[in-house]
């Protein structure tokens, strides 16, 4: 009887939730915000915030394409955003409700416009690069003082990987980032959509495959910080978070991040409002809150990612704004590349190649 009472109240609560307007459901990447900001948002606006996380664009995209996700704000990466806009998954932003939009940085907006022309559907949350995180002590112990920790050769040259295998190497489980990196290593166009060019990536991965412990897109933060693994191909801020966690734990693990000298992929995570968002008004309030200079600075200071907010830069801590791994200098910026989404035929080629790389079949 007690059980039935519980289910009844639970379903009542659900209905009540649907009726109350002041609620916003946000779906963001894991380890991607200072939790204090969430409490601040609720205190300032009186809107109840339900915050949920994911660790792959594919999961988010499937929810978007299934429709009725129930989320008011989601955070796809540029290439995925572009495809989802084409599918009709998002609504145009109402700029009159976003006065803080004036804080945004034109340098970033110019680049995000290639995914979202005119930046009509999205605002930039964070951006970063895909690069290499290493446990400096272990890697220099295995490869010597001149280990190429700032080069793709560290992870794509079998001679290096063979030595590193014993201490653990993780690769991102994200073909849309790993395959362009392999193509860049070969000197090909990283954004190639030609199946014959993409196929060349196989030759890069297959020889190093036996030495890769795991393909995963979020486990490496803790694994690097604990010393479980010594190399990870991952996202800049995630690796810098691992660096911080290791420093806090004072466990003798020293982590360093480098964008590869061959060229690194630059990506943009964009906040957008699904076309069927239950509460678009509250979603706009949330976006406006995020675009506040102080809030955005707090977020970047916490997660070690650069943001697309010009006004926040004055409020950033020196180890964020001054770190070229986060805010690259002009020369590095020129060396970064961006990619565009694959169509479904090429996507199938890419996924099949990725399965082959991961499983050997």
């Amino acid at each position, binding site marked *: 009887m007690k059980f039935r009472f519980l289910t009844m109240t639970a379903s009542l609560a659900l209905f009540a939730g649907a009726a109350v307007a002041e609620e916003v459901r946000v779906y963001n990447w894991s380890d991607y915000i200072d939790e204090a900001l969430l409490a601040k948002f609720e205190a300032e606006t009186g809107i109840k915030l339900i915050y949920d996380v994911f660790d*792959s664009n594919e999961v988010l995209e499937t929810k978007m*394409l*299934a429709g009725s996700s129930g989320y008011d704000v989601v955070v796809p990466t540029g290439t995925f955003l572009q495809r989802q806009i084409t599918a009709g998954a998002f609504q145009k932003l109402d700029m009159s409700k976003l006065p803080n939009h004036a804080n945004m940085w034109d340098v970033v907006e110019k680049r995000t416009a290639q995914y979202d022309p005119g930046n009509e559907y999205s605002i930039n949350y964070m951006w970063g690069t895909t690069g290499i995180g290493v446990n400096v002590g272990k890697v220099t112990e295995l490869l010597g003082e001149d280990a190429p920790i700032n080069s793709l050769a560290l992870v794509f040259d079998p001679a290096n990987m063979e030595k590193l295998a014993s201490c653990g190497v993780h690769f991102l489980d994200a073909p849309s980032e790993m395959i362009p990196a392999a193509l860049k290593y070969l000197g090909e166009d990283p954004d190639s959509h030609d199946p014959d060019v993409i196929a060349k990536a196989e030759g890069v991965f297959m020889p190093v495959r036996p030495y890769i412990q795991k*393909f995963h897109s979020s486990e490496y933060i803790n694994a690097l910080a604990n010393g479980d693994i010594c190399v990870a191909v991952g996202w800049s801020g995630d690796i810098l978070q691992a660096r911080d966690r290791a420093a806090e734990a004072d466990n003798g693990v020293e982590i360093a991040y480098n964008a590869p000298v061959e060229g690194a992929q630059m990506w943009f995570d964009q906040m957008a409002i699904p076309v069927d968002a239950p509460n678009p008004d509250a979603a706009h309030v949330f976006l406006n809150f995020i675009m506040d200079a102080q809030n955005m600075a707090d977020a970047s200071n916490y997660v070690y990612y650069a943001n697309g907010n010009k006004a926040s830069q004055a409020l950033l801590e020196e180890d964020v704004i001054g770190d070229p791994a986060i805010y690259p200098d002009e020369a590095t910026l020129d060396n970064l590349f961006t990619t565009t989404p694959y169509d479904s035929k090429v996507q199938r080629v890419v996924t099949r190649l990725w399965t082959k790389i991961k*499983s050997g*079949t």
Partner: protein
Amino acid sequence: MRRFTLIAVPYLWLLALFLVPFLIVLKISLSDTALAIPPYTPTLDFSGGWSAIKDFFSKLDFENFIFLTEDDLYWKAYLSSLQIAGISTLLTLLVGYPIAYGMVQAPDEWRPTLMMLVILPFWTSFLIRVYSWMGILSNEGFLNQFLLWTGLISEPLIILNTKIAVYIGIVYTYLPFMILPIYAALEKLDISLLEAAEDLGCSRLSAFWLVTIPLSKGGIIAGSFLVFIPALGEFVIPSLLGGSGTLMIGKILWEEFFSNRDWPVASAVAVILLLILIIPIILFQRNEQKAREADQ
């Protein structure tokens, strides 16, 4: 009339929870992918009347099933899943049978406690229990730290992200499903049959082989199916504990659905998985039926 209602209830249940979802998946498996919401075409629209429905059916085809035969990845994944599920079931039986046997041999007043201990892990979330295994099996995990401390090994064992970890995970997770039916079968076992066997000159070991095992066959079969069927489509355990080389159909399905955004091919993979599963389920049902008839 009463008999009819009695039968109707489980059949309605089956219809609502099995047949309708299956038909939806089957329908998607015959469609084509599209960049839209939902990401496949055609979608059924009743407002267009009879001609729209006819038009809808004319657009369905078996293209996706043919596609599955063209790439050996899918067959390899099905076979590898069958192998992993089969070996895990065998291991679970080897671990579970002695536990169930021990529980039956234990004094009566202990049995509720022992039963409780078998069920107790279910009170913790399945996901948390699998994550705990990651903490135990990792290179710097408890197991390796303990073994290094005892001096049994000098280098940490690499268990996490291998097939061995997948077997450990499946055996651990599904062990109660094996123990409980075997326990139920052994509990009903008439001790006097064993005494008779020994009186007639049977050694304890051969009495176990010739009397106990055959009489607990129903429990062994039920337990094996309860482990094999979910293990075959398992996704969480291989993706958390397994390495990149662990090929299982659950992971392939995930990739079709999420990475390729190809719901039709994902549905076709699921339909075939279901067909593979239906065979043991029918065998299981038949076995149950026989056992029931034998009881009466």
